[in-house]
């Protein structure tokens, strides 16, 4: 895949990718955009090995998902401090976003449940596709979706 073709694909898919990462980052746009850029650079570096089978978006989401998990793993030790800071400032980081309730509810979910829920409800993927993107079994995805949905409904009082 040439650079021009890659950029053309990205121009078409970037909004969906950023939306997915924005939900995973619970509305933190700067984090989401940084992760999107990192994921896209990784995708660019490995696009020589990509074989076009009409699943470019899934391939991109897989890279973005792994980038997000790596980012979460690297932040694990400072996460509690960040969460405490967020609680004190009443989500100052999210104040510029209009969907605070949903993002706050998503924040309570573990990253894997959050990813499964976002891919299922926001991006419209089915269980098989989610299991391919997240590299987990379909049963595990079903469990994540079920748990995540129950927690979200409870938080959002739906």
């Amino acid at each position, binding site marked *: 895949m040439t*650079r021009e073709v890659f*950029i053309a694909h*990205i*121009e078409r898919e*970037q*909004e969906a990718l*950023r*939306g997915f990462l*924005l*939900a995973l980052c619970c509305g933190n746009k700067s984090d989401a*955009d940084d992760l*999107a*850029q990192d994921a*896209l*650079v990784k995708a*660019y*570096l*490995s696009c*020589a*090995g990509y074989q076009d089978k009409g699943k470019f978006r899934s391939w991109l989401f897989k890279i973005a998902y792994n980038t997000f998990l790596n980012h979460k793993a690297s932040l694990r030790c400072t996460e509690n401090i960040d969460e405490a800071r967020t609680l004190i400032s009443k989500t100052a980081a999210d104040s510029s976003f*209009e*969907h605070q309730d*949903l993002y706050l509810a998503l924040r309570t979910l573990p990253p894997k449940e959050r990813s499964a*829920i*976002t891919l*299922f*409800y*926001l991006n419209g993927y089915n*269980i098989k596709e989610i299991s391919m993107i997240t590299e987990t079994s379909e049963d595990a995805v*079903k469990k994540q*979706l*079920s748990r995540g*949905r129950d927690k*979200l*409904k409870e938080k*959002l009082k*739906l």
Partner: protein
Amino acid sequence: MTKDKALEELFLAQKPHFSDNADFMASLTKRLDAVEYLKQHQEATIRRYKMLMVAAFVVGIICGAAAIGYVLSMPADVPLFTVHVQTGLLLWLAENSRLIAATVLSLLMTLGIISIISNVQDILRMRVRIKA
């Protein structure tokens, strides 16, 4: 698994729209330019490394051949070097000069081959890292 209607509607209603797509793409293009520059730099480094290795290999072969040629061209009954001191160890060195020179040359060539193999492995590893 069926979708929960209320959740689906909530997600769809809150689907984000970005107004800074052009800025995002401009920033991405800059990053890709930087990545491209680094890739080219790494490839140039590998090329230089390869050329240096080939040059070292050729110089090693020439020097080794010259040294072995020198050793073989000397008369067999004359030692390669003589030490004008009648000490036990130095006398032994002088008597076995051919054997010692051959051993040292073999050792040097072995070290050279080992270093070439490790350099080739380094280059292969660097290539894999660049592709990854």
